[in-house]
């Protein structure tokens, strides 16, 4: 085997090793790692080494040995055939492999009674045991950090890594409500289960402004939408809010249990409702999430609620 081949093998192994370390550490898999990863990298390394070793063996024979043996009687288009014996190592390993396969199939596999779903259940149980105990009682910082970790995988595809809604494709989570969302809700009502019950908000035809004792007008809707989206600050729209909305959402907009949700701030309970029921509004539709664990919901609730406070 010449030096180039050797160098190439070393380079390949080094690259694989580097991959393993780089991905392994970034993945926070800690010291023990994932044995499937180890096995795969090992397989790749073994593959290079065995091929190189065996090929070198035959290249040596091409270089140093001579051909020979008894020729068969036939000859096809000038091609002869030696009656050489089987290469010993090959024959033995082939036989061994066949015996192993038969044994494995008749005894090795049935006796172990492998089931991939059984293996999955064990994997999940072990995982849960490890993390549930560890994160049973989290402080706020840990809770937020965990929430962020879930957010990046589950929510960022819609809300963006910055949680800014990516130019209006989903809700900007740094603010409670966008102006167009408020307007849309007042015009059309809303029934997103934000209170955990199917109590809808009436549309404009159900909304009286008690200041004027008339149905809410287009101009008033514009004003109140600005006011709510602005975090209920300022004076413009304040009176409309007091007249038409405060009855349910409270004078401060922080909502009332079983009556109307908080529309001044993002609260953990409100986020939790969105996660469990999804949400459909002016921006678009968000699906409900059914696949998260209790801890993950809690962490997300805390993390998202913390975003709007910043």
């Amino acid at each position, binding site marked *: 085997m010449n030096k180039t081949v050797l160098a190439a093998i070393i380079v390949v192994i080094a690259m694989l090793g580097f991959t393993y370390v780089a991905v392994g550490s970034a993945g926070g898999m800690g010291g023990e790692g994932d044995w499937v990863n180890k096995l795969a990298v090992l397989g790749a390394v073994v593959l290079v080494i065995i091929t190189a070793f065996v090929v070198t063996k035959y290249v040596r024979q091409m270089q140093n040995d001579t051909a020979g043996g008894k020729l068969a009687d036939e000859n096809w288009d000038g091609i002869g055939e030696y009656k050489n014996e089987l290469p010993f190592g090959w024959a033995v390993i082939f036989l061994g492999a066949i015996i192993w396969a038969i044994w494995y199939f008749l005894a090795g596999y049935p006796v172990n009674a492998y089931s991939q*779903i059984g293996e*999955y259940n064990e*994997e*999940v149980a072990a995982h849960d045991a490890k993390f549930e105990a560890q994160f049973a009682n989290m402080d706020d910082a840990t809770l937020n950090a965990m929430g962020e970790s879930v957010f990046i*995988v589950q929510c960022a595809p819609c809300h963006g890594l910055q949680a800014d809604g990516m130019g209006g494709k989903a809700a900007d989570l740094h603010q409670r409500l966008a102006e167009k969302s408020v307007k849309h809700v007042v015009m059309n009502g809303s029934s997103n289960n934000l209170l955990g019950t199917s109590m809808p908000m009436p549309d404009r035809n159900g909304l009286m402004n008690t200041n004027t004792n008339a149905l809410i007008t287009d101009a008033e809707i514009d004003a109140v939408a600005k006011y709510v989206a602005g975090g209920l600050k300022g004076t413009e729209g304040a009176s409309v809010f007091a007249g038409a909305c405060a009855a349910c959402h409270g004078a401060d907009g922080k909502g009332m249990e079983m009556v109307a949700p908080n529309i001044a701030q993002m609260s953990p309970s409100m986020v939790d409702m969105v996660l469990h029921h999804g949400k459909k509004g002016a921006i*678009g*539709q968000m699906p409900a999430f059914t696949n998260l664990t209790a801890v993950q919901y809690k962490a997300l609730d805390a993390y998202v609620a913390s975003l709007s406070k910043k």
Partner: protein
Amino acid sequence: MFHWLEKRPFFFAVAVFVVIAFAGLIEILPNFAQASRPVIGTKPYTTLELAGRHVYIKNSCNACHSQLIRPFKSETDRYGHYSLSGEYAYDRPFLWGSKRTGPDLMRVGNYRTTDWHENHMKDPAAVVPGSIMPAYTWLFKNTADIDTAYAEQLTVMKAFAVPYNKELPMADGSKATVALADTVEAARASALEEAKVIAADMKDQDVKDAVAAGQVPEIVALVAYLNSLK
């Protein structure tokens, strides 16, 4: 014996055939009865969903996307419950794929919605920065082939007793029925009704206009299909 065979091509061919046919008989046949029984909650595709499935196949989405969630924690965390054989009972052909250049889509209907798909199919990188998925802009212009989807529904109902127009048990104990139209005109009309519901959640004006004018753009059918993947 081998020398004998090597001088007799006919018997040689027979011997080869026997040796290679053996495995198929043992490996494939036993599973046939088992694997195609639907699990509770599995429904046949509606006309529009099936037309969308054809759009998916036409554009070889399966070149990049799998529809098979393996029983590993890392996959069920990302995509949802691992796949069950019976969930594929009405999939002809199966669309498991063999490469995940993009994520698995077996249950994408659970965690993506119509408007997201609309934005994404138009320009994936605008929704997912760094995406290498092509933009499928022509789906917004081409018209879906509802007739062929209906023809396929009729075919599978006749040939494989796919239960259209029958009450099917759902996971929550309720019953559901997937209706199949009697005529191709009725099928077109029912597909259009489905399309209207989807188009209502979309923003592209051309698509909305087309549906209003009685046509079903490919994207609408595709979204119906993607939403049905649960």
